[in-house]
């Protein structure tokens, strides 16, 4: 005899990807795969607006690094380093033009070692460990041949700090007070000299200069005598470019995953739910939406921060992907995605900028050749392919047959809904196509599924109706960004099923 109907509720907020447990052990609001969809301020899943292309930077060239040069006087510049050995800048990237124009700063520079940048004293200071340390004031360059040949830069206590000198890989240099054109000969210190592979990145917090090695973390807490100590014996940083500040916290990518710097003690690993990405023994299938970390290219991992998430572009030889983390949402969810120009993308870098009176914008340069895109700045007709795969549900009775009566979805906009059966990715039925109640507000749609299975997985996708960002002020860029409102969104799901008992065959 059939038992009473059982409901499985997937309430908001959604919790993002969880790859760190069995597929049947996920919480209902966790996802086995989540690509393209993003979270709004309430944890609702929605289709974001697609990027807007601002054109190819230079035909045939790929990007190495990028920097926003925001000045108190003069237009903000987007500076990029390309693998033809050139540094270039654009100022019209902020307007809604379809193709950005680029001006050359310098040529004949490294084609493989990306510049790192610090804006200070109304100039951009650049180092890559190969070429001479250099500055750019928006109109003219200068080089400093006798400055250390470091690759990583940080500001702390009114001085610039530099490391990544391959001749002295454990060394940190400090410039003269307030003057990065002068490097006193005695201003350097070695951090645990010869004890490891050398420094992999530096950054600063209020009380210390943070120095990462591959497997350890150290802080210098005295800017005069360089007194320092090791604070983390188990985690370091894979890529200097992975270090990113977000909402007052410092995040970076270690060999154990994404970490949040905690100040005076070991950093916290925050990527538990996507931990397999960082596990050498784990091989992702593309169906799960992510590949394992490409250790050959781990020094190119690029971090960025935008609105309510912090993300990283992770390049590989064949294709690249991004991971995004939403630490301010209750469930602190993660999601995956691939830049729009893959599979030809070898590397993507992203920088955000907020101009006075405008909303924050996120720009990405990536692909081969490199193109510049304004993320979420696409035309309203552009949409990203988005998909969400739930956990597998068996109501804790894996051998019992169930009659899946209906699926109710609180949503907006058209969605395609598929039910997969019995832990088989290829065994499914499309139960709704273009599911749309036609109302602008969230409303519930009911799908009578009439499905028999021992376990089910919901797969919801959308390729239409991208997100809308409401403009509150002005024109131009401000018209392209602001408060998130996904036109196609999922807020909650309820699955109703009846247990039928074990099937006799």
């Amino acid at each position: 005899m059939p038992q009473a109907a059982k409901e499985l509720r997937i309430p908001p907020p959604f919790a993002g990807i969880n790859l760190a447990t069995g597929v049947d052990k996920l919480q209902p609001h966790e996802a086995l795969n989540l690509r393209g969809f993003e979270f709004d301020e309430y944890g609702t899943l929605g289709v974001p607006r697609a990027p807007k292309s601002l054109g190819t930077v230079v035909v045939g060239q790929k990007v190495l690094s990028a920097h926003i040069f925001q000045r108190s006087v003069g237009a903000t510049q987007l500076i990029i380093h390309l693998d033809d050995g050139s540094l270039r800048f654009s100022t019209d990237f902020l307007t809604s033009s379809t193709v950005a124009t680029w001006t050359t700063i310098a040529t004949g520079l490294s084609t493989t070692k990306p510049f790192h940048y610090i804006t200070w004293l109304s100039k951009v200071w650049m180092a890559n460990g190969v070429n001479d340390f250099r500055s750019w004031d928006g109109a003219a360059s200068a080089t400093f041949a006798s400055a250390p040949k470091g690759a990583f830069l940080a500001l702390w206590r009114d001085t610039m700090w530099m490391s990544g000198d391959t001749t002295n890989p454990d060394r940190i240099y400090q410039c003269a007070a307030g003057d990065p054109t002068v490097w006193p000969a005695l201003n350097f210190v070695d951090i645990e000299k010869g004890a490891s592979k050398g420094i992999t990145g530096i950054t600063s917090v209020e009380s210390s200069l943070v120095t990462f090695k591959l497997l350890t973390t150290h802080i210098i807490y005295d800017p005069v005598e360089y007194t320092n100590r090791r604070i983390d014996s188990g985690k370091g940083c894979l890529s200097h470019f992975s270090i990113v500040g977000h909402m007052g916290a410092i995040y970076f990518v270690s060999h154990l995953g994404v970490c949040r710097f905690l100040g005076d003690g070991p950093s916290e690993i925050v990527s538990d739910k996507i931990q397999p990405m960082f596990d050498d023994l784990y091989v992702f299938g593309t169906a799960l939406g992510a590949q394992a970390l490409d250790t050959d290219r781990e020094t190119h991992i690029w971090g960025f921060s935008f609105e309510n998430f912090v993300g990283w572009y992770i390049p590989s030889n064949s294709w690249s992907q991004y991971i995004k983390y939403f630490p301010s949402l209750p469930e602190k969810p993660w999601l995956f995605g691939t830049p729009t120009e893959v599979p030809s993308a070898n590397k993507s870098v992203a920088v955000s900028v907020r101009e006075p009176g405008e909303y924050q914008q996120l720009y990405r340069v990536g692909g081969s050749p490199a193109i510049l895109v304004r993320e979420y700045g696409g035309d309203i007709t552009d949409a990203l392919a988005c998909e969400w795969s739930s956990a597998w549900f068996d109501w804790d009775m894996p051998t019992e047959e169930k009659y899946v009566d209906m699926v109710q979805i609180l949503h907006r906009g058209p969605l395609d809904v598929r039910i997969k059966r019995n832990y088989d990715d290829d065994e499914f039925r499309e139960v709704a196509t273009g599911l749309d109640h036609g109302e602008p507000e969230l409303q519930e749609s009911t799908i009578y599924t009439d499905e028999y299975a021992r376990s089910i997985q919901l797969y919801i996708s959308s390729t239409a109706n991208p997100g809308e960002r409401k403009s509150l002020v002005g024109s131009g860029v401000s018209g392209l960004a602001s408060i998130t409102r996904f036109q196609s969104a999922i807020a909650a799901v309820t699955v109703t099923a009846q247990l039928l008992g074990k099937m006799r065959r």
Partner: protein
Amino acid sequence: MARLEDITRDEIQTLVNAARNSGQNEGEYVRAQLTARYPGIENQSIRRGPNVFSVLDYLVEDTDSYATGS
């Protein structure tokens, strides 16, 4: 007398270049020139991190980080 902390990498670079151009040992040349320029430097020490170093030793220690060629 100039302060030791004012010795710049430019000054050391010039000394390193001169040593290379004249075929002399870089460390010995830099050490001799700095001793002549800064009387008493051989008795100066500097604290770096947890340790105390001879200033001359510390400066000569870093000469390998300077650009090659003149």
